[in-house]
């Protein structure tokens, strides 16, 4: 971003005409749709964090008969679900990576053939 200290005020003999392109009429900040995406990401991540922290850290110390326990699945799933997601995510990412590497190697072989 250009800092104010480097603003030039001496334009020499050129006359700076005020054309429509120099008048800024836009709005500041992200567009409406971007704001919705950003806000939804933020709320989703907050909800996930709070729910998971309650489930994994707080609930084990809460009395078994308390009503809140009805809102959470069994405790083992607090470990199984992130584990499965991690394995699944790593599989997808590494498969994609390996396919890209194989394709690029085939291209190099084709070129040199």
């Amino acid at each position, binding site marked *: 971003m250009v800092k104010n200290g480097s603003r030039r005020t001496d334009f020499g003999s050129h006359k700076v005409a005020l054309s429509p*392109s120099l008048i800024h009429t*836009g709005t500041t900040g992200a567009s409406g749709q971007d704001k919705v995406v*950003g806000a939804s990401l933020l*709320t*989703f*991540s907050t909800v*996930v964090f709070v729910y*998971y922290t309650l489930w994994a850290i707080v609930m084990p110390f809460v009395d078994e008969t308390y009503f809140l326990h009805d809102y959470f699945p069994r*405790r083992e799933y607090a*470990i199984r679900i992130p584990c499965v997601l991690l394995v699944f995510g790593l599989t997808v990412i590494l498969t994609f990576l390996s396919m890209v590497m194989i394709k690029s190697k085939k291209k190099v072989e084709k070129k040199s053939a």
Partner: protein
Amino acid sequence: MTRATEAAAFFGITTTIYLALLFQWLPITLPETVQNFTLPVLPWWALVTFGAYSLGNIGYHVLTFRDCPEAYDELQVQIGEAQRDLRSKGMNIK
């Protein structure tokens, strides 16, 4: 200490303390729930927290992104000046 060294040191110390408590190398007895459930679930909790923090950070910055109108104005003035300068030297600019 460089950033990398600092991060590695923090990671190393946390991991050592965690493993010491998990495998009961120290003569400390923790409550049964903590030892059997909370300690094993902590790495997964750290992973979920890191993912949530990353996603939330991105969402927050997308939400509060500023357009910088001052930089836009300054840039437009500089573009106009550059165009005039090149035109005066004979270049054809639309």
